């Protein structure tokens, strides 16, 4: 096993290799020509690699716009990568051309979104929403099979079969998220991508949904790719975590390692800025600097303008991911062993 490619484990269900997505964000053609503007490309994702083992929860964290959702959409095949590949259970998704080959894999990969309302068709009854994958993948033979399966998954997520007759707007935010989980479950997936599934919910409702997801994971052996910007939530649900900054992974580590010994300066910054309930009344040093412009990212290490450890090399040379213990980190200071051991400023002083 070499360098950052810690991906060739036999139990890996998902392997993401050198994934990249570039968006053309130029002004419309005519305007661009008239005003003499250049073509502008936004590298939303640039060379991301990780693997997810069967039954584990792998999370992506990072600030808004760092590319988490873009990775998620490529992993489930909703978007085509500009470069790189996604291998699901041994099959390279990009190699599949025929619909008939793709459909069975699609069924096994489901997605839950942040806004449970926007992702549910308001004119459909809940039963039809939930049965959508059953119909799309031809998973049921008869009307009564369908009704039975819908009732079963509604119960699995803590709703009642009678709720199937109602419309999404008749439910609260937490209940709507249960409906989208039920829809994902109806396809009997192996792998579920959860893009900020609780970000729109109150903490008390969030606890219900996180507990439900964990329970379903244990019952059905699900594998999750979980996306959130809430580090306490990520810490609670994850086996392993990838920290993203401007389209790249800067650290991949187990949840325990990341929270106890974060290595990358950006991981440390993130950990230091979590508002923590335990720190009532204590002051927290604000972080200087802005999230940079993804269209015109800083050269070298994209994090260098905000990094307390940046040196000459960081301004010019982009750090590549490398293994340190069980973690993968892309940072010159870590490689050069210039980084002091981490102490969370919240917990000490």
């Amino acid at each position, binding site marked *: 096993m070499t360098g950052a490619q810690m991906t060739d484990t036999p139990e890996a269900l998902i392997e993401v290799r050198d994934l990249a997505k570039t968006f053309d964000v130029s002004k419309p053609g005519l305007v661009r020509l008239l005003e003499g503007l250049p073509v502008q490309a936004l590298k939303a994702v640039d060379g991301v690699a990780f693997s997810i083992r069967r039954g584990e929860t792998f999370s992506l964290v990072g600030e808004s716009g760092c590319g988490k959702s873009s990775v998620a959409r490529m992993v489930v095949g909703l978007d085509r990568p500009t470069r790189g590949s996604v291998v699901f259970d041994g099959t390279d998704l990009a190699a599949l051309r025929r619909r008939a080959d793709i459909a069975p894999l699609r069924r096994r990969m489901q997605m839950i979104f942040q806004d449970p309302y926007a992702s549910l068709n308001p004119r459909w009854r809940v039963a039809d929403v939930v049965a959508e994958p059953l119909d799309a993948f031809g998973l049921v033979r008869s009307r009564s099979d369908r009704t039975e399966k819908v009732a079963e998954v509604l119960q699995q997520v803590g709703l009642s079969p009678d709720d199937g007759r109602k419309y999404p707007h008749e439910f609260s*935010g937490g209940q709507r998220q249960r409906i989208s989980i039920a829809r994902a479950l109806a396809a009997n997936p192996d792998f579920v991508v959860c893009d900020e599934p609780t970000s729109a919910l109150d903490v008390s409702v969030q606890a219900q949904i996180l507990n439900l997801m964990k329970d379903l994971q244990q019952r059905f052996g699900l594998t999750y790719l979980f996306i959130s910007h809430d580090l306490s939530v990520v810490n609670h649900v994850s086996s392993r975590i990838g920290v993203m900054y401007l389209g790249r992974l800067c650290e991949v580590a187990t949840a325990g390692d990341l929270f106890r010994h974060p290595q990358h300066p950006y991981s440390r910054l993130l950990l230091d800025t979590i508002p923590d309930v335990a720190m009532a009344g204590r002051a927290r040093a604000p972080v200087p600097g802005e999230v940079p412009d993804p269209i015109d990212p800083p050269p070298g290490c994209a994090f260098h303008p905000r990094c307390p450890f940046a040196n000459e090399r960081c301004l010019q040379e982009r750090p590549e991911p490398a293994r340190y213990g069980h973690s993968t980190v892309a940072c010159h200071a870590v490689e050069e062993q210039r980084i002091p051991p981490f102490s969370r400023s919240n917990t000490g002083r």
Partner: protein
Amino acid sequence: MALLQVDRLRVEFPARQRTLVAVDDVSLSIDAGEVLGVVGESGAGKSVTGAAIIGLIEPPGRIAGGEIRFAGRRIDCLPDDAKRHIRGREIGSVFQDPLTSLNPLFTVGQQLVETILAHSDRTAADARRHALRLLEEVGIPAPAQRIDAYPHEFSGGMRQRVVIALAICAAPRLIIADEPTTALDVSIQSQIIALLKRLCREHGTAIMLITHDMGVIAETADRVAVMYAGRIVEVGPVRQILRSPNHPYTQGLMESIPRLGSDSAPLAQIDGAMPRLHEIPVGCAFHPRCPDASERCRETRPALRMVADSASVACLLFDDGCADD
């Protein structure tokens, strides 16, 4: 005397079949230089309470009872132009989405200067100097270069700081901040929080900070009021409420927050959901979800009572039995 004193506030919205009570018998106070956090689930009545204080309840909604006093003066029943005068000059506001508070057609500098001129008798040149100082104070880098930029040319965190600059440009004595950091990244969030705290410390500004982020409350607030179904269920010093809450709802809420360093055991959860306005149960509004509910909780509505030095709770477990309403 408290800077802001709200007594038994009631806000109603007439609906087709019945009148919905969004804020029901809410009393709170804020001193100069103090941050009062207001927390609670979506729909608990936090924003409506804030809107009532700044006089922004849109008809047919109305303040149907209670009093709001600011610096000793009643402000809930003033005529519209007097309300508008207080708003902006004495009480500033910051809302969740900075774009709704900024006009996209004018530069940040134009908007600041206009607001400063409206609330003071400075000259235009002096107002612009003041605008620059404010931008610097809220942490906009290179303000002299940014002052003539339009809102869309700023990042989300910078826009929110511009909104705060607008809110403080008339040096208000109270700021109502409704979810000021909810749309922002944690690193930017920490900058905004530090800024709000500095305003309190250096200018004695009082802040009502509405949010459902307990972490933000923990770091920023001096006292915290917990709302549920339009009512305040518990209020007190932030440490006390977060570490040893008394109300069963606050207890459930605190336990349901994932903590760093905790194991991955299931989170404690409060089953069920907060009732909608048209189906608020009689008695204690929390009783259908409360693990400690007794027969009395179904009938008797608990009043907010002092339990410790400066903490109050509305729960029959802490009631001596002589509640009369």
